[in-house]
């Protein structure tokens, strides 16, 4: 049992966070549906939250976790407003494809 590692280096958590963030960026660039683009933004927020929690663990700091809590609250507000905007855009344009909602004016 002693040969089996019981601990995980924190750099693995940070690497996972970096990979998730990059996947979020890829989704943001590649996806053509505005809801999925928004979901990719949420994925990026989550990836950054993971690195916040990792550093809070590293420095034994509570404030890192509190920052994640604030990010979550702001993300909830952002999701509510963003989805309301998507609903308003859909009502005006009847489409969700980002290529067709590229003008500010109607």
């Amino acid at each position, binding site marked *: 049992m002693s040969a089996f*590692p019981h601990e995980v280096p924190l750099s693995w958590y940070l690497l996972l966070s*970096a*990979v998730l963030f990059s996947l979020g960026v890829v989704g943001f660039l590649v*996806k053509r549906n505005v809801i999925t683009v928004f*979901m990719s933004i949420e994925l990026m927020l989550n990836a950054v939250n993971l690195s916040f929690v990792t550093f*809070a663990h*590293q420095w034994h700091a509570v404030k890192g976790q509190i920052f994640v809590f604030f990010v979550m609250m702001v993300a909830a507000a952002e999701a*509510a407003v963003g989805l309301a905007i998507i609903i308003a855009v859909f009502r005006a344009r009847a489409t969700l*494809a980002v290529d067709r909602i590229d003008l500010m004016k109607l």
Partner: protein
Amino acid sequence: MHLILFVIFAGFCLAGAINLLLQSHPINSALSLIVVMTSLAVLYLLLGAEFLAAAQIIVYSGAIMVLFTFVVMLLNAGREERTLGSRAAFTVGFPAVVAIMAVLATIILRAQGLGVASLADAITPTEELSRVLFHELLLPFEVTSILILIAILGAVALASPGHGYTSDDGERISNK
């Protein structure tokens, strides 16, 4: 044990995130994102952030993703269509993302003094978290609650039927 749990749930995270990209239907992407967020909650728990693990499940996997799936179903979002713009995003975006990834990985792997996480580590008690939150950071907390209130009002104002224009003639939709 920590390693096994980390590998399993990091694998779930990556699989969910990749599946989010590969699926062409938004509802499948939303469900994969729920998998990602729930696995992240387990990773938070492994890092000793028990309150955040609970908040992640309640706020993200619960509230936010329910909102997403609700909007996907409300707008009857179908399969996404691929256009010329997506090809430009492919050609320009992927090298940029690979560069970002490479820079981040280099920085992380070269960082000195990063510790390790194991199951023996102390879990941050919620009591300690709330003591800091309600003593030192009470003002930001209250400001955030006002922000959420404004966001709710804004969401209601934006999504209410009287708002916006119709797609065909630019005429304002009447309040029914």
